[in-house]
């Protein structure tokens, strides 16, 4: 597949103005209210409350076993909550079987019916709805065009490539025009390059249809690229909900900071906090840390600074005065092509990761292992975490 197939939608511009969750007059499409689900002694979903709005692309992100798939299956009707309720367009879904719910799911294994052709697979949901034959044929043609599988209508699933199967599964779930599309790890089975392309296709598709998408993924990059909002889950709880940039730049806990992207976490004791800035004393940085923070943290309390590797500058000459200066030596580095990640061992003994964009072609590496170096970061590059 060539890159010219990528949609030419100005997604960023459309996205930044889309924020239905900020409008209190809007009724969410889906509402989870205190939903709990237990399997035996294990609580898979623990008192989750969550609202998803019409036309939103919402991602449930978390490691495997965090309850994200269970949450989706509760919405689809394959599991029944032990407590709480789920409403869709104002209607309580309790007691409604999967076939009575106007949501469709795209399964991780795609779950294409092996005995049916591509077009029969796509027509399956429409047939169950009792759609007249002519209309089914039209809709199937439309769906095949949508996912660019026009020539493959009569193929059986086992005659398709992984990417094609993924698109058939997508078309089959969209065909009955559900109020909401649920995608369970939709890209997990694809190789990296195809996955990246498909991410953009999914966004373009969602924009074009105006359909509400709920995606479950363990891949933070997938969630960041596709979703309007991300809910980060951990052990059955939702830890943080926000736009991708919010979750990345202002994580609310060490867990979220660490789960989404790479982060260096420094522990320190608060020495001053004036409602704008906070200073921390720490063995890692003898001159002390300084970061922006609105909250007046109690002096003497423990806080953590989260600093992303790309926000740390690496110097070979000692920098001038200022906070957030650490001396160390390069312990290791990894060349990634576009970036180089350096692992620097501080005088305190801990290691810090710093990333540098390879802005020019590297002929002779200026930095090598065991080189002495200094690390700095700006006060606004760090996020202060208290839990």
């Amino acid at each position, binding site marked *: 597949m060539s890159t010219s197939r990528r949609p030419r939608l100005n997604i960023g511009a459309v996205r930044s103005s889309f924020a239905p969750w900020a409008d209190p007059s809007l009724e969410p499409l889906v509402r989870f209210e205190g939903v709990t689900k237990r399997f035996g002694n294990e609580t898979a979903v623990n008192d989750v409350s969550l609202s998803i709005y019409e036309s939103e692309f919402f991602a449930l992100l978390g490691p495997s076993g965090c309850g994200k798939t269970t949450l989706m299956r509760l919405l*689809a*009707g*394959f599991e029944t909550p032990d407590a709480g309720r789920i409403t869709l367009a104002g209607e309580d879904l309790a007691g409604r*079987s*999967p*076939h009575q719910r106007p*949501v*469709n*799911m795209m*399964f*991780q*294994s795609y*779950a294409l*019916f*092996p*005995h049916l052709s591509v077009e029969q697979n796509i027509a*399956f*949901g429409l047939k*169950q*709805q009792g759609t007249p034959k002519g209309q089914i044929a039209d809709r199937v043609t439309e769906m095949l065009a949508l996912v660019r599988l026009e020539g493959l209508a009569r193929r059986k699933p*086992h005659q398709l490539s992984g990417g094609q199967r993924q698109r058939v599964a997508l078309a*089959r*779930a969209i065909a*009955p025009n559900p109020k909401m599309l649920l995608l369970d790890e939709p890209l997990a089975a694809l190789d990296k390059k195809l996955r990246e392309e498909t991410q953009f296709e999914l966004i373009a598709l969602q924009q074009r249809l105006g359909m509400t998408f709920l995606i479950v993924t363990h891949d933070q990059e997938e969630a960041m690229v596709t979703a309007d909002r991300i809910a980060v889950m951990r052990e059955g709880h939702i830890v943080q909900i926000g736009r991708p940039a919010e979750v990345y730049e202002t994580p609310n806990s060490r867990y979220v900071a660490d789960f989404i992207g790479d982060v260096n976490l420094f522990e320190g004791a608060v020495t001053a906090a004036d409602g704008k800035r906070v200073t921390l004393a720490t063995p890692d940085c003898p001159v002390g840390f300084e970061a922006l923070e609105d909250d007046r943290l109690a002096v003497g309390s423990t806080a953590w600074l989260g600093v992303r590797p790309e926000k740390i500058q690496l110097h070979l000459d000692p920098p001038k005065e200022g906070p957030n200066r650490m001396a160390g030596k390069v312990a290791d580095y990894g060349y990634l092509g576009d970036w180089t990640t350096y692992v620097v061992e501080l005088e305190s003994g801990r290691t810090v990761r710093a990333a540098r964009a390879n802005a020019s072609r590297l002929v002779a590496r200026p930095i090598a292992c065991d080189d002495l170096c200094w690390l700095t970061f700006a006060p606004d590059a760090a996020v202060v975490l208290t839990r």
Partner: protein
Amino acid sequence: MKRGPSAFNIASVVAGLAFLHLPIVLLVVYSFNASRLVTVWGGFSTKWYGALLRDDQLLAAIWVTLRVGLISASLATVLGTLAAVALVRSGRFKGRLLFSGMIYAPLVMPEVILGLSLLLLFVAFGLPRGFWTVTVSHATVTLCYVTVVVQARLISFDKALEEAARDLGCTPLKAFFAVTLPNIAPAVAAAWMLAFTLSLDDLVIASFTSGPGATTLPMRIYSQVRLGVSPEINAVSTLLVGLVATGVIAAYLFQNRRRGRDA
């Protein structure tokens, strides 16, 4: 190192196969014997197959056997498939182990005991023994074989397919017929053929549970042999061997074709 089978390997395979199949080969060969005497070769002839067609009692027995086989295999397939679905799909219900153990018990139970217990049951209920008691008994015995075959297929069948069908608007029952059944059909067909073949060649259970007017072919052959082996019996036995072999091979091919497509 020498590749391929050694002389010893070849010898042991030949000996093993001969041990297994020499009696059957002999039976088939003697069914074409022109001589009335079973042990004396009197030249090639198909006259015993002709005689077969004029033996009304034998033809009646064949007809009974086929009917018993068809009906009992169908009954066993439906019930056995349902049992397999229950075992594989309903997860961990209370007494699941007991249930599966009870399903498989007839596989290892001596046939004589099965036959005897069925006979006792029919006597206790005052049921006249005949065609239907044999049929039901065969269904009982072959049911567990059906369950084993169908269960093996269901375990490898992706449960998400059923969920997808339900998600797209099917009730659980409809999802079973629209998606599950078409996909496990080869295994169900193979199970039916297995049940049919087992019913065809059963003597023990039939002897216990049959009554007047419902003599199956194996029963007929057995009673005739007690009066002396006739070439006509050889002929009908050859036909039976052919039919059973065809059934087993067809069942095998059915399952294999499926496996080839899944891979």
